[in-house]
C-alpha cells in the first residue's frame, strides 16, 4: 500500500494544468482610433486586472514576425496601459504582450491590426 501511495503522490506531483494566463485585454483603442500612417502614435489598452509593468514586455510585430520592443506606461485608470508606437508604414502588424498580472500569472496576448492609407 505504501508503494501505491508513493505512486499516487508522484503522479499527483507530475500533473499539469493549463498555462493560459489570466490578464487579458478587455478594451483597446485600435478599433476606435486607427493607427495613422507614418506617424508616431499611442495605443490605449485596458486589462481585466492589475498588471506589473516593470515585469512585463510589449513588442511590435511587423512583416516576417520581426519583433521590436516598445515602451509601456500606466494610464490614468487602474488596469490601463499606454503603448508608444513608432511611425508605421501601411501594412499588417501585431502587438505581442507578455504581461505579469498582480495575481502572479504571466500571460501572453496578441492584438493584430492594420495600418491603412486614409481613403
Amino acid at each position, binding site marked *: *500500500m505504501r*508503494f*501505491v501511495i508513493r*505512486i*499516487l503522490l508522484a*503522479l*499527483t*506531483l*507530475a*500533473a*499539469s*494544468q*493549463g*498555462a*493560459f*494566463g*489570466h*490578464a*487579458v485585454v*478587455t478594451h483597446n483603442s485600435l478599433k476606435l482610433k486607427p493607427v495613422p500612417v507614418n506617424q508616431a502614435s499611442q495605443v490605449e489598452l485596458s486589462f*481585466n*486586472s*492589475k498588471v*506589473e509593468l*516593470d*515585469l*512585463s*514586455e510589449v513588442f511590435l*510585430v*511587423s*512583416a*516576417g*514576425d520581426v519583433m521590436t520592443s516598445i515602451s509601456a506606461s500606466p494610464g490614468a485608470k*487602474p*488596469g490601463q496601459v499606454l503603448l508608444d508606437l513608432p511611425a508605421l508604414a501601411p501594412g*499588417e*502588424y*501585431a502587438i*505581442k504582450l*507578455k504581461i*505579469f*498580472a*498582480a*495575481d*502572479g*500569472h*504571466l*500571460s*501572453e*496576448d*496578441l492584438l*493584430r491590426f492594420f495600418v491603412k492609407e486614409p481613403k
Partner: protein
Amino acid sequence: MEGIANYLDSLIGGVDLTFYSIAIGGLLWGLFVLRPWDENANYNSALLQKTVNLIHFGSKALVITQLSKIGLKIWLMAVTLGKSPFPAFFHTVQFNAGLARATFAFALYLFIKQALKANLRSKTHWLVATAIVIPLVMAAAWLVHGASRLEDRGLLMTLTVSHQIAAAAWVGGIFQILALWGLKKQNAIAEELWPLLLKRFSTVGFVAVALLLVTGTPLAWYYIRTFQGFIGAGYGNLLMVKIMMMGLALGFAWINRQAVEEYFACRSLYALTVRVPYYIEAETLILLTILFTAASLASQPPSVDIPHLTATWEEVLNMFHPRVPRWESPTHEALIAGEAGRTAIVGQIPSEAATAWSDYNHNISGIFLTVMSFFAMLSYSERFHRWTRYWPIGFMGLGIFLFFRSDAESWPLGPIGFWDSTFNNGEILQHRIATFLVFMLGLYETRARVKADPGILPYLFPLMSAFGGMMLLAHSHVGFEAKTAFLIQVGHTLMGVFALILACGRWLELKLDAPGKNIAGFISVFALFQIGVILMFYREPLY
C-alpha cells in the same frame, strides 16, 4: 527551458492546494471531529500522533511548495522575459504575500514540532495552532484571482478564501479518514472509533459542502454572468467540470453516510469495513482532481472579461457531433509546408493540412480505444476471456502511434530535436508525458491481467488513468486564438472526466466484492468507450 518552467509553474498550484488542505483541513478535523481534549474521548496515542503527524507533514510541505512557487515564478519570468526580474519582483504582492504565507506555514510547522506533539490532548495547544493559521490564510488571500481585480477585490478575496477553507476541511478530513483506516486495519485503535469518527465527519463534511456552495455560487456569478460564458469559455467549462466531479464525490459521500447510518441502526460493521474505505479512496482521487482543476481555473481569464471570445452552444455541440472518422492523413510534407503560415503572427494563414493531421490523430486514437473497450467488455465473458484479456496491449500500440504523430514538427518526423522540443514547449512536454504514460499503461496492465499473482500491479492502471485524467483536464493548447483553444479544450476536459470515472471504476472493481465489483468494472469500461467515441468524432477548428 521556458516550456518546463511554464509547466512546473502551472502544476504547482494544485500541489499547493493539496498540502494546504492537509494542513488546514487536518487542524479542522482535530478541532471539530477528533476533539482530543474531551474527557469522554477514548483515543490512544497512536491515533493522536498519526493525526498530528499528518498536519505536521502538510505544514512542512506547504512551506516547501510556497517557496518553490516563488522560485518558479522568478525562473519563469527570467526565461520568458529574457532578463532578471529583480529588483521589481521584490515589490510585488506575489513576493510579499508568498513570503508571509511561507513564514506562517513555517511557524505552524515549528509549533507542531515543539509544542503540539508534546501536548496532544491540550485544547489550548490546538487553539494556538489554529490561531497561527489565521494570518496564513490572510496572506493566502492576496495570492488568489480576486486580489488582482480592479473592483470588489475585498469581497472576491474573502469569498475565495472561504471557498478554499471549505475545500480544505473536506479534503483534509478525507486524508485523516484514510490515516484512520490505516490504523483500523492494523487494529491500532478501538473498534467503535471508526464508525464514530465517520459519523462526526459527515456533519463537518455537510457544513463544508454548504460553505462551498454559498461561496462558490456568487464567485461563479461574478466571473461568468451569462449562459454563453458558462458553456462557451474555458473558465465556465472548467467550472462545469468541477461541478460534475463534485457531484461524483458527493455521490460517494452520500453512500458512505448511508452506510454509517445503517451501522448505527443495526450495528453491522460489514459495509463500513468492506466497502466504505474503498469508496473513500475513490473520493480522494476525485477530490485531488478537483483541486488541480481549481488551480487550473484560477489561471483562466474569467468568461465575463472575454465576451467577444466565447463560443456559442451550437459551436460547442458541434465538437461532439457524430461523423465518419478521418481515415486518411495528409502527408508530412504538406503539414510542414503549412506550419510557417499557421504559426505566423503577421500574415497568418490557417493550415488545412495541420487541422486534418490533428483530426486523423484524434480519430485513429478513438478507434484504438473503442475497439479496446469492446474487447474489454468481452473479457468479462468466460468464453472469450482467454484471449480478450490482452486488450490493454492496444495502449502500447496507441503510445507508439502518438509518439510518431502527436508533434510532427519535432523528432522523429520533424526538424526540431527531441530535447529542444520537449523542454522548450509546454504543450509538447505534456504530449510526451501522455505518450509515455499510455505506453506504460499498456505494458503494466497487460502483465497485471496475465500474471497469476500480479501483486500491486493492477493498481497502477487506475492511478495512471487518474493521472491521465488530470492531464486532460489541465490540457492547454497555449496560443493566442482563445476561442479555438477553448473548442479544443472542451473535448479534452470531458475526456478527463471520463478518465477519472475509468480510474475510480477500475479501482473499485479491484477492491470491492460482488455485485459492486461488477458494476464498477462495467462503468469503468463504459467510460473508456465514451473516451473512444469522443475522439472518433473529434474535429479541430481550422486555425
